């Protein structure tokens, strides 16, 4: 189903959980709400579930007012972070709950309910455990019961709150793949909340990055990673190097390196550039502007090596990634000297008024004409 969230705001006593949030959800989409804790993502999920209401703004579903429907009328499936299984009911009774509480005229017959519950248990691979109580299940099993229970009411929208948050790392990865496959099979509009960027990047069709009650950027995982729209997204997603720039006449400089063009046409005096570790060129020829850097450590992580560089000219430690097989060819080892320069970057000028606040509207993305 198509959902349109328009300018939602929700204030709690002393902070704004949601601040003017707008978002569009396409049918069948797998959307991640990604952000640190306290960014408002769970509040947004609870509003969609009908467990909380915004102070301002609207949610419409194909032109209909979604917020006017109560939680029980919305036909939404919700999986809580800690599953919230009914502790006094068996797995089977938990899954059947949503069907059993339907008003009589919409309630399926007993046999039909039983059949549907069995089908769902099979789908989540728990057909053997139908008579167990939640306390007798592992974390991963509980999560699948919660999912089966949510799917039993045949929801049009599935909401997952930190679906893998309470699981250990191994189960997490398995369940993640399994959930992605399930989504492809059901084609159900799904929104999940997470603070784990890896999870969001791997699972979602689109990611909405949230910070302090606002949506910083919405886009495909690719776009979010390659083309971060705000300083927050630059720093929150993946790893990045933050490099202050100063304008000297027409050039923006950081130590020995400079940006030859001026994207802001003589406005602003200071800016911040964000450079991904894999976007640092490490063997810049003499004559090109570059930093004289020294390798402090080499961390080999399988196919990739992480380098810890120090640039004395700007007194900054930088991170750089290279393919492990290139280490020898480039002569990269602890203590080695090299000439480094950004191959790609995203930069924001700083507000001339108070000098520190980056101006998001004047974001500039730049790629070096020189191949790495």
């Amino acid at each position, binding site marked *: 189903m198509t959902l349109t969230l328009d300018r939602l705001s929700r204030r709690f006593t002393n902070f704004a959980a949601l601040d003017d949030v707008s978002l569009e959800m396409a049918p069948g989409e797998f959307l991640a709400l990604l952000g640190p804790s306290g960014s408002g993502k769970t509040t947004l999920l609870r509003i969609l579930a009908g467990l909380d209401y915004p102070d301002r703004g609207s949610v419409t579903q194909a032109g209909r007012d979604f917020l006017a429907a109560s939680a029980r009328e919305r036909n939404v499936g919700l999986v809580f972070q800690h599953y919230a299984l009914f502790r006094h009911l068996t797995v089977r009774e938990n899954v059947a709950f949503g069907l059993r509480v339907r008003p009589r005229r919409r309630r399926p017959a007993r046999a039909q309910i039983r059949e549907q519950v069995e089908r769902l248990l099979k789908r989540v691979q728990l057909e053997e455990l139908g008579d167990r109580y939640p306390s007798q299940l592992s974390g991963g099993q509980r999560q699948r019961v919660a999912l089966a*229970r949510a799917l039993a009411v045949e929801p049009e929208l599935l909401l997952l709150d930190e679906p893998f948050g309470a699981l250990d790392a191994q189960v997490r990865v398995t369940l993640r793949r399994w959930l992605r496959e399930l989504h492809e099979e059901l084609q159900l509009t799904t929104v999940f909340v997470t603070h784990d960027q890896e999870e969001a990047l791997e699972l979602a069709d689109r990611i909405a990055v949230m910070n302090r009650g606002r949506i910083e950027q919405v886009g495909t995982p690719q776009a979010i990673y390659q083309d971060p729209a705000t300083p927050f997204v630059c720093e929150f997603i993946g790893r990045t190097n933050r490099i202050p720039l100063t304008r000297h006449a027409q050039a923006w400089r950081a130590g020995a390196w400079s940006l030859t063009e001026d994207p802001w046409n003589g406005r602003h005096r200071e800016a911040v550039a964000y450079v991904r570790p894999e976007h640092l060129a490490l063997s810049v020829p003499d004559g090109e502007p570059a930093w004289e850097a020294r390798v402090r450590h080499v961390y080999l992580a399988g196919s990739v090596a992480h380098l810890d560089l120090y640039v004395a000219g700007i007194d900054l430690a930088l991170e750089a990634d290279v393919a492990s097989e290139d280490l020898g060819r480039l002569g990269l080892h602890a203590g080695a000297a090299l000439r480094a320069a950004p191959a790609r970057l995203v930069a924001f000028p700083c507000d001339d008024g108070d000098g520190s606040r980056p101006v998001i509207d004047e974001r500039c993305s730049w790629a070096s004409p020189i191949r790495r």
Partner: protein
Amino acid sequence: MSGGSARGGSTGRWLGHVAIIAFASLFLIVFLLLPLASVFAEAFRQGMQAYLASLQQPEALSAIRLTLLVAAIAVPLNLVFGVAAAWAMTRFEFRGKAALGALIDLPFSVSPVISGLVYVLLFGAQGWFGPWLDAHGVRIIFAVPGLVLATVFITLPFVARELIPLMQAQGSEEEEAARVLGANAWQMFFRVTLPNIRWALLYGVLLCNARAMGEFGAVSVVSGHIRGLTTTMPLEVEMRYNEYDYVGAFAIASLLALLALLTLAVKTFLEWRYGDEIAAHAPGGH
């Protein structure tokens, strides 16, 4: 518990343990078991026949009936109030929540005699509403309604105090899950909330009932001691005792003692069998 590492040279500590246990046991025997035994001894001093005869006197029967009636009204009232108060305290945020919590505890902190006097002050002949009630032919003090009011007041905290910590620990997620799954308010309460609190609720009701039947102070003030009309069992015990009818007094006292023992037995069973559902426990830790 005293630690295996110290087992060798700790005869002194061992002696200390024995002394403490012996002291506690002796204390219990002298101050609890002995009096309890004496109640039954006194009741049966003149044999089974005298015991049964004294229980079959009309005043005794009416006192038993009145006690059951008062408990039958006060306990359900406090059950409903207790659940509602616990719900309000644990599921909603509102101004004056701390004040409500303190108010629920008030009957525990006020002397029962004062509780009784408050009702006399409100509804008695010289009280605030007394004349108005009198004019409309409603009698509260020195009548059954007064007994019920005083008992409700005295036993008010039991159910609520038992439920609040449990419901706080359980949180409202299961209830929210029920709502999202399409349950209406009744279905949510009867299918999710109630099953989760049932043993704690029973426990609270049990304690509430024991107190409702055994309360003396507050009831004594509002009763007026009209034989056969406004005397509950504890009051009847006192009146008989004052009239030197020891067998009669202890016969009724033995019934109250039996109720106490029964309550204790059921309470112990509940604690043993469903301890983790009565005491507060962390959500998800189940």
